[in-house]
């Protein structure tokens, strides 16, 4: 009973207070309370980051202890986690040694892995863009025009390409995105009301 009721009450109060703050900005008490709730959210999010790190520590320690598949990679992960946390705590995140780790280890590795996306996109575009029917044809044509219209070589191939590309982005794309944004906002309002009224309980977990 309490396990479900308390989160429902917290959800109701937090939602009502923040909503009230926006609709009644002249009410100093509500304004201050609403500000506090928004600030608490950042504190909770910071705790969630810490919780994630603890979870990572536990999961990978177990993996190493059981010598599960990829346990050697877990050692590297834990060593990095502990080293960076220690440097951050004792030397500070603005210290030269922390920056060195970021600039010469973390950033090149992360950028390198992410750059593999270019290879996947090239291969996927080649395999998936097929003129099967008029809809896929329109999609393919739009993609080709926008892709070439964004770079200088597009203008060399066809002078009017950048203008057509800009038109696609400014008119049909904006119209579509505006519809999605308005639809999404209406959905968010409906979901928020359901959470405030306790009708939406998915966030409580447990699959109910």
């Amino acid at each position, binding site marked *: 009973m309490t396990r479900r009721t308390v989160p429902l009450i917290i959800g109701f109060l937090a939602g009502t207070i923040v909503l009230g703050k926006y609709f009644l900005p002249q009410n100093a008490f509500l304004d201050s309370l609403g500000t506090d709730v928004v600030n608490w959210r950042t504190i*909770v999010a910071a705790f969630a980051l810490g919780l994630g790190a603890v979870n990572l520590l536990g999961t990978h320690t177990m993996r190493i202890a059981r010598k599960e598949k990829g346990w050697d990679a877990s050692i590297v992960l834990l060593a990095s986690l502990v080293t960076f946390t220690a440097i951050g705590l004792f030397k500070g995140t*603005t210290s030269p040694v922390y*920056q060195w780790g970021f600039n010469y280890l973390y950033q090149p590795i992360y*950028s390198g892995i*992410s750059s593999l996306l270019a290879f996947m996109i090239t291969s996927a*575009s080649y395999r998936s863009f097929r003129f099967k029917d008029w809809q896929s044809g329109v999609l393919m044509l739009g993609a080709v025009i926008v892709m070439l219209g964004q770079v*200088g070589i597009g203008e060399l191939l066809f002078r009017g390409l950048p203008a057509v590309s800009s038109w696609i982005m400014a008119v049909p794309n904006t119209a579509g995105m505006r519809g999605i944004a308005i639809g999404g906002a209406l959905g968010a309002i409906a979901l928020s009301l359901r959470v405030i009224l306790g009708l939406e309980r998915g966030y409580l977990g447990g699959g109910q």
Partner: protein
Amino acid sequence: MSSPWYERLQSIPKPAIYATLILVFLVPLIRPMGLPLLMSENTRKAYEYIDALPEGSIVFHSIAFNPAVDAENWPQMLALVRHYMKNGLKIIFYPTMQEGGMYAERIRSTYAAEYGYEYGEDYVILPFKAGGESAIAGLKDFWSFMPSDVDGTPLKDLPLFQGFTDMRDVDVIVPCTGSSDGLFYVSHLNAAYGTPIIMAGTAPVLPFIGPFLASGQVKGAIIGLSGAAEYEILAGVPGQATGAMDAQSMGHLLIVGLVLIGNLGFLYGKRVNGKNGQNGRRS
């Protein structure tokens, strides 16, 4: 028996595609081709807005990207920051991603001295705040949300914040982002105070900000590596983006070329095999 040419056109092996892509990127980087650089309206508007700000205006530069997308975002940020510094604008850096602060530190350790910028007086780095949208919504109550800078120095002790009341004193907000997070500034600060916003984002961000560019809430946008290159040219601060544009042009051309080759084989195969081979291949 080897498959017919139109089937082979549809099944170029991945290693061949990857090797060609590497070549197509490498050659222009080693030997620039001098392909023309386009100048988009969005970048021009962004440049003109920043350039027209009087000396001493406050720019709130939000950093919401990480190394996954910094190939596009970092050249944008560097071109923008050099332009701010060239024009004597005050800068407040605010990381809304864990890694964001490191890019601001790079400015402090490497680039600020180039323009004689003093920390605390000409620019300040705020600490990272978790929470995504809440970390932006919280800025409306600036002083209780952000009492000190990244070093723990109270903001009220820093010269830049003398006379600073709240976010209404900011002249322009520039979110530099790899996602649509920058739009939270539109909903929370532009909507509340009318603070102008210039967006700097990766190429996929453009579709999301289109409606806000049309409404005038976002005054201009620097999009992708091409946007960074355009801004470097406009602001007269040459950087790595301009040099990398030939490689990007050739990469786009390769993708389009591969799509055309694949479709040539597909359509020919469809004609030869009739409607039975739905994907243009023999069944």
